[in-house]
């Protein structure tokens, strides 16, 4: 009998796979109750580090061309497609879904990523404007990424939910720190490998597994996070996020998406929530 | 009584469009230099080297070894030209002069409180005179960047003029320290100021600040030299320094010179490259061209 080499699932921070500085982990089981893997129990220090890395990466990422961002997200979809089998396997084992359902979710996740890859060089044309002011000024408004965005990922569907919230945040030039599904983090941690092989600069996307009640408050109160995408689905936590976020006037967007497979679970508004509009005036005259 | 020099009129200096000039530099970087022209270019670049050592830990021994390398870049191959000059702190001018003998390799001395230039003017002038007295053929001075950035152009001009006078027969290179000037407009302005004040060469950097010599900065300075020449008939030389490590970069510099200023500037009298480790990459590329094999550092001397 050939023994398989079991995988250690690590956090993905600053482009590196790291263990939690807490040294702690939580066991994940298959639906049959068998041990599947240990998962890092991310700490607030891991979170702090992730925000630092996100901030450091964000300026360069925002400055890259729309075309390049699109190419990187497209490459991500290619890497994702190439490994769809292993994702289907994880979903089956850890969420107990049928093979067909797992296939459906992986397919939808890849398509969602592709959808946002195609937005990189288009949202500006739709959200930006030239404003016909009454005085002799050339007046234009442009969307700019807000900066570092904290994402509280939905519990289920874990994979499709992660992609649905991560892709629209980073395509406009933000960097993200994601608190993964607490019950089902494995497919997301596996997705980190897709991020790592996609040419996405380290620090633009950071994935942290662990207990939401331990981590969410630190994310919501962090003075160097500019916005929160709250798709966690926990009313009590959501209320707390809303209140804590006021400490530095974070932009908070709460999501209650009933069906992540539906058409309205993607689109321009997912991008729009995490950009700032800058209006510039310049005289017209000789 | 000689007439007073005209005050520097910054408003007459042409503007530079940063995006445009970067594009021009990038498009010239696409020149493919192969075979005979690559070999010729590398040899030319070697003959234009100012081999440099400007460290706190420099000593007589270090300087003598550098001089040996400058005279004979590749032991056993007498066809390789010597470098144009060695560039050292004023303390080592005498040593270098002795080591170089009658080889034709020049001694360039930095002076004027290199690299920061934050010393009183009399000290700058004294240092210059001493370096020249000890035998320096060339003096590399630094401009007062603080004064420049505060708009005290006449003061900067005046300093350059006085240093030029203190040089006597020695040639004066004026270091602009482009990394601290930051904008291309400032680099262009400083170039014209230095040339109007008597610089024989304008030089990008001390090598102690990054960014140092970038293709865009070099092109700005070459264009300034071109306009100066067309207006006055005087040819001023150019020396990029700092961050130039590979043959590819050196050849790119030669392309910039050739296509901006033309044939007359493709000579060590008007173009120098300030570098230390570049020499070995030039030699490695030369050997690769003739042998067809990629090279290993162990086969080239590190002095």
């Amino acid at each position, binding site marked *: 009998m050939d023994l398989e080499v079991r995988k250690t699932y690590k956090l993905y921070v600053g482009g590196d796979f790291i263990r939690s500085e807490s040294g702690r982990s939580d066991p994940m089981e298959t639906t049959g109750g068998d041990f599947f893997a240990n998962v890092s129990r991310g700490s607030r220090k891991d979170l702090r580090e992730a925000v630092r890395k996100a901030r450091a990466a964000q300026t360069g990422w925002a400055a890259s061309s*729309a*075309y390049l961002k*699109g*190419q990187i997200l*497209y490459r991500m979809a290619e890497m994702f497609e190439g490994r769809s089998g292993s994702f289907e396997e994880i979903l089956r084992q850890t969420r107990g879904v049928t093979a067909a359902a797992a296939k459906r979710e992986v397919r939808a996740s890849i*398509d969602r990523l*592709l*959808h946002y*890859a*195609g*937005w*990189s*060089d*288009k949202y500006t*044309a*739709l959200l930006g404007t030239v404003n016909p002011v009454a005085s002799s000024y*050339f007046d234009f408004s442009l969307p700019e990424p807000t900066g570092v965005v904290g994402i509280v990922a939905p519990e289920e569907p874990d994979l499709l939910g992660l992609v649905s919230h991560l892709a629209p945040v980073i395509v406009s030039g933000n960097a993200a720190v994601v608190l993964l599904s607490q019950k089902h983090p494995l497919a997301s941690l596996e997705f980190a490998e897709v991020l790592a092989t996609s040419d996405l600069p380290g620090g633009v996307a950071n994935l942290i597994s662990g207990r939401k009640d331990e981590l969410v408050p630190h994310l919501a109160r962090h003075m160097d996070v500019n916005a929160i995408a709250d798709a966690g689905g926990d009313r009590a936590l959501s209320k707390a996020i809303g209140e804590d976020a006021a400490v530095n006037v974070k932009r908070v967007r709460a999501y209650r998406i009933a069906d992540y497979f539906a058409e309205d679970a993607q*689109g*321009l508004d997912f991008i729009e929530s995490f950009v700032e509009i800058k209006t510039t005036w*310049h*005289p*017209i*005259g*000789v | 009584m000689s007439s007073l020099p005209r005050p520097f009129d910054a408003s007459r200096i*042409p*503007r*530079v*469009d940063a*995006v*445009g*000039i970067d*594009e*021009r530099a990038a498009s010239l970087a*696409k*020149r*493919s*230099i*192969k*075979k*005979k*022209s*690559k070999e*010729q*270019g590398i040899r*030319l670049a070697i003959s234009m080297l100012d081999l440099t050592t400007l460290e706190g830990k420099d000593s007589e021994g270090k300087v003598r070894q550098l001089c040996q390398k400058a005279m004979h870049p590749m032991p056993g191959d007498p066809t390789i030209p010597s470098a144009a000059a060695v560039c050292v702190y004023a303390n080592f001018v005498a040593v270098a002069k002795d080591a170089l003998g009658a080889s034709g390799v020049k001694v360039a001395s930095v002076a004027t409180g290199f690299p920061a230039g934050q010393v009183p003017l009399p000290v700058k002038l004294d240092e210059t005179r001493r370096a020249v007295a000890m035998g320096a053929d060339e003096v590399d001075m630094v401009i007062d960047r603080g004064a420049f950035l505060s708009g005290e152009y006449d003061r900067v001009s005046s300093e350059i003029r006085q240093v030029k006078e203190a040089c006597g027969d020695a040639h004066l290179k004026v270091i602009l320290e482009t990394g601290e000037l930051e904008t291309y407009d400032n680099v262009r302005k400083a170039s014209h100021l230095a040339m109007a004040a008597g610089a024989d060469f304008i030089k990008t950097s001390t090598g102690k600040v990054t960014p140092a010599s970038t293709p865009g900065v070099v092109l700005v300075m070459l*264009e300034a030299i*071109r306009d100066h*020449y*067309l207006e*006055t*008939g005087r040819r001023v030389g150019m020396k990029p320094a700092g961050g130039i490590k590979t043959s590819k970069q050196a050849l790119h510099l*030669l392309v910039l010179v*050739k*296509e901006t*200023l*033309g*044939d*007359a500037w*493709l000579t060590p009298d008007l173009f120098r490259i300030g570098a230390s480790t570049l020499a070995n990459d030039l030699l490695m590329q030369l050997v690769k061209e003739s042998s067809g094999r990629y090279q290993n550092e162990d086969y080239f001397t590190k002095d």
Partner: protein
Amino acid sequence: MARVIEEASETKPRPSAWERERPALEFGSAWDYAPAPESRDHVRLAERYDLFIGGRFVPPKSRKYFATINPATEDKLAEVAEAGAADVDAAVKAAQEAYQRRWSKLKPAERGKYIYRIARLLQEQSRELAILESMDGGKPIKESRDVDLPLAVAHFFYHAGWADKLDYAFPRKTVSPIGVCGQIIPWNFPLLMAAWKIAPALACGNTVVLKPAETTPLTSLALARICQEADLPPGVVNIIPGAGETGGALVSHPGTRKIAFTGSTEVGKLIQRATAGTGKRLTLELGGKAANIIFEDAALDQAVDGVVNGIYFNQGHVCCAGSRLLVQESVIDTVVAKLEHRIATLRLGDPLDKNTDVGAINSKMQLDRITELSGYGESEGARMYQSSCKLPEKGYWFRPTFFTGVAQSHRIAREEIFGPVLAVMTFRTPDEAVEKANNIPYGLSAGVWTDKGSKIFKITAKMRAGVVWANTFNKFDPASPFGGYKESGFGREGGVHGLRAYVELS
């Protein structure tokens, strides 16, 4: 006092740049660049090419083939099928069938995926196609490699992403495809023009029948092969080489519901007349005679670089080429001197040499036309300056040229030469510059060079041209709409606006 009177009675014209004693720069042969030829050995070139219809290469019912040659060497490259009326009919029917049976039934996101595939395949085969483009058309490899191919790839990537987002481009409208589009493209950017036409058409759910120019069919045919490699449903893209008659048949075929034409104004007008009253949608991208305006407060060195790129890039075979230069009189001598210097370093020769800046003229016919029009420059009294580069023995070549002392009423200031010839004239005030720039039936592009921000916005606002470049020239991007005013055509390509031509809104 005496000196003033003397000057006032001076009747001789002031000496210009060349005549005055002025220090000269010599751009000679100190350190010549060795030939740096791009290797041709991995280019797949067949002896004979058939028509691409219904997903396959099929021989022409017309039984006719024509030769395509390399304008730099006059060597024949291949024989290419010429589509006759029956072939055009077969192609349009294939496109109709593909539209009805497959393409219109696909989910938009799936259409996008096909277009992504084409983009990727084109990206992977870029080097080969760039060489083919230079061989077939004469443009320098440096340009086909660094401009034509990357932009063509980018067009497919950009439009792939629109396929499932059209509702956003037309809010509150129901968006549907038009059907079969007939597309006719010119010889100056063969593959890029094919990309500009095919990518948006497909993204919006249409199918196409495209006719490449008769002197440059090869890269469109390579694109056809790429469509096969991408498994594009047969008939979605059809490529049918031919000349004027083929184009005419395509335009008048009842099955083509939309026509897109890029080419000369003369032919554009014929097409407009032919499609009148047929209900066919039409976009035209025609000729130009763009003016570059250099103000005295411009960054002059970069302005001259921009002007040189604007007219000598692609041998001046560019509809939006900056073929007129308006210079504020106070800086005319400086600008002319700088132009002289720049022209002296332009390298003309083998398009496949990586150091070539100016390649071959696309055809004998075009060379004759350039020579004739340029002749008017001299005979009408403008002063000519021409680079002194050596011309290869075989092939079609024209040296970079500029004329000074040009007035609005010179023929070279009004007619599109479509070659490396620049007409230089002066102006004194901004209003005069604007008036001269607009005083022409064309209106494709314009350039404005000044360092003053408010002036940029003021002057660009007054340019009657579809694309205005401020402190730059000849910049293209799939996200940026391109098209003309007046007799330079109508309709836009690229950007949100470019989608309009390829959809029905209700």
